[in-house]
């Protein structure tokens, strides 16, 4: 369950980063640090806001600095959501 949720979050985040950077999702490296993509603190607030809305929970923007890649952030969120008993069914589609 957790791995599936992690993959879903990773895919959603990759699509979002690709949209922000105007590059194909396939070009997004999930192990590259967010700051290497040129994402600053304002972008971090925006990304965590959209991600939080997507997952139906409030996220602290500082999470993007504690877990600074798509991969590590997704794993952290999937694990903490599983611990909190939040089901994957609450997730919606990919960003438009």
């Amino acid at each position, binding site marked *: 369950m957790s791995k599936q949720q992690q993959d879903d979050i990773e895919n959603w985040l990759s699509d979002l980063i690709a949209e922000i950077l105007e590059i194909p999702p396939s070009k997004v490296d999930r192990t590259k640090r967010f700051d290497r993509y040129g994402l600053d*603190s*304002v972008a*971090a*607030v925006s990304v965590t806001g959209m991600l939080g809305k997507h997952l139906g929970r*409030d996220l*602290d*923007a*500082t999470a993007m*600095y504690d877990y600074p890649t798509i991969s590590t952030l997704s794993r952290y969120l999937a694990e903490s959501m599983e611990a909190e008993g939040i089901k994957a069914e609450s997730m919606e589609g990919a960003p438009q």
Partner: protein
Amino acid sequence: MSTLPNPGASAKAIQFHYDIGNSFYALWLDSSLTYSCALWDDHDTLEAAQRAKIDYHIEKSRARGQARVLDIGCGWGSTLHRLTSNAGVRSATGLTLSQEQAAYIGQQRWPGVHAHVESWSDHVPSAPYDAIISIGAFEHFAKLDQSPKDKIEGYRGFFRRCHEWLPPGGCLSLQTMAYENSTRADFSPFFASQIFPESDLPRLSEIASASERLFEIVSMRNDRAHYARTSLEWRRRLLRRRLEAVALIGEDAVARYDKYLQLWAIGFHIGTMGLLRLQFRKLEPARLH
């Protein structure tokens, strides 16, 4: 004693932020309405951490049991009230440029507490003070467009005044945000235009330079992690009361506060900004032996 030109933010700029409405701040600050970084050592609740911060400054300024204490930038009066109700202080005077804050303090009718809508630069006390506390006000004592020389001279005017008002060996306990791994050029236009107009942060070196030969620095803590935690806690509380907040100040303003509290948390978390708590002791003129 004559007054000085106020080198920092104008009353209008201060009121832009702090007079948005006491009811709004009451939704997400702790019950004492303390709007500055808390001290989280061994404390789990915002209430306890804010009280610990106030007690820390009471101890460092050596205000306990004194007759007259000054609080420069007194907010909604939580420190003034703690001084007179818990620390045995007879008279606690607060200065603020916010009319809403001064009115709120007046309404409380706390014995021994007096608040004035006045800058430190205009303040002419009737008698000296035994101790001085200033928490979260120094950030408004300089403007972004000042030259580095004028900025330090403005700060020095503040320290000179505190020096004049204190007895030999008297202490000032100061808390302020500061630039850490960042510079003036990094000051966010969002903060400058929409959150804290006419304000600039100090660097530790500027504080040291502005106070030298007036005060010695006795102790210092950099508690930036405490401000990251305080900011995130404020934001969580604001989001829990979001609908009421929107009803009071509108959707756009709430979104602005939400964004600012998150940006602040990031800044303190990654060290672009620091949070300094400094204890100063008054120096006497050097004598030849």
